[in-house]
């Protein structure tokens, strides 16, 4: 036994679901309201302001599409990590988690190039309300990607040693949700022009 007490919010179950995973579902539920509020507001404004189309046409559809491909692929890696964890193969689970992390890093690199280009062209957070929404929605999402990568790196380290494999599924759920948010952000910010 380690010198630190084991966290109880992992495998304990009084609800039919391990407490750790239940916490992630609660987190996702609260995130629905957060992202739903931002995206709902954006959709309403887009409908009320047809002139925003002239701003939206400056977003890079191909960069958005490529990042969608990257996140969908990283989601596949996350679910394969979960499958490996179910088979108690910690090393394999960790390997797939590292691929998932790689996907997240590629996503962030593409995003940073994209934002740099847009800012250089004068499209900043304050230049127009469209860009305020654009940077806010994609920024909050990017923050979730960064947080997910950090948590996943910690879990992958433990998974490699066969420790707390149930966490692989929990972080996978979070990552799939981040993927789903992007699935909706992509058409809203990059396709609707």
């Amino acid at each position, binding site marked *: 036994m380690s010198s630190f007490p084991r966290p109880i919010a992992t*495998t304990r*179950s009084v*609800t*039919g*679901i*391990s407490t750790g995973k239940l916490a992630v*579902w*609660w987190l*996702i*539920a609260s995130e*629905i*309201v957060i992202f*739903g*509020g931002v995206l*709902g*507001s954006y*959709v*309403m404004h887009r409908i*009320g*302001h*047809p*002139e*925003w189309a*002239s*701003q939206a*046409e*400056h977003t890079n559809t191909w960069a958005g*599409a490529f990042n*969608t*491909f990257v996140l*969908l692929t990283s*989601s*596949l890696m*996350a*679910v*394969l990590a*979960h*499958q490996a964890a*179910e088979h*108690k193969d910690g090393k394999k689970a960790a390997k797939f988690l590292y691929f998932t992390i790689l996907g997240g890093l590629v996503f962030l690199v593409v995003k940073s190039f994209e934002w740099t280009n847009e800012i250089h*062209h*004068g*499209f900043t957070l304050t*230049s*127009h*309300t469209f860009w305020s929404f654009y940077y806010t929605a994609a920024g909050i999402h990017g923050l979730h990607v960064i947080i997910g990568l950090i948590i996943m790196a910690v879990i992958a380290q433990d998974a490699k040693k066969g420790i707390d*494999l*149930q966490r692989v*599924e929990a972080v*996978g*759920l979070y990552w*799939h*949700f981040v*993927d*789903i948010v992007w*699935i*909706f952000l*992509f*058409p809203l910010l990059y*396709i609707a022009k």
Partner: protein
Amino acid sequence: MSDSSTPAAAAHDAHGAHHTNYVKIWAILLGLLVVSVVGPMLGHPVLTMITAFGIAFVKAFLVIKYFMHLTVEKKYIGFLLLTMLAIMLVFVAGVAPDVMKHEGQRWTNNAAIDAVEKGLKEGGGHHGEHPAEAPRAEPH
């Protein structure tokens, strides 16, 4: 993790020896991504709505069902998520009339109307007026 109440274990139980082919689901998702990019290029508004936004819901459904295993999760999780969606819809329904419409029976949002007119005139310009900085709406 190892108890049979986990979604993956339940999915295994539900499908016998057959496992979900995650790579196949991923390939379908990529196919849908291609359609959602190519569809709007045809320039038809209805087709754009279906291919861009309709397909986004299909993609989200596939991820929720096959990657998150929600369909074999405890039922109350689904209800929890639906409750949050309902709360979000209540917010949208409450705010929509003020945001999406710029005039009603007894009010006019002059700032929004001006912002739309100015923005449409400027066309491709990217330094349009921020509607929030425009004069506030006045009832008439």
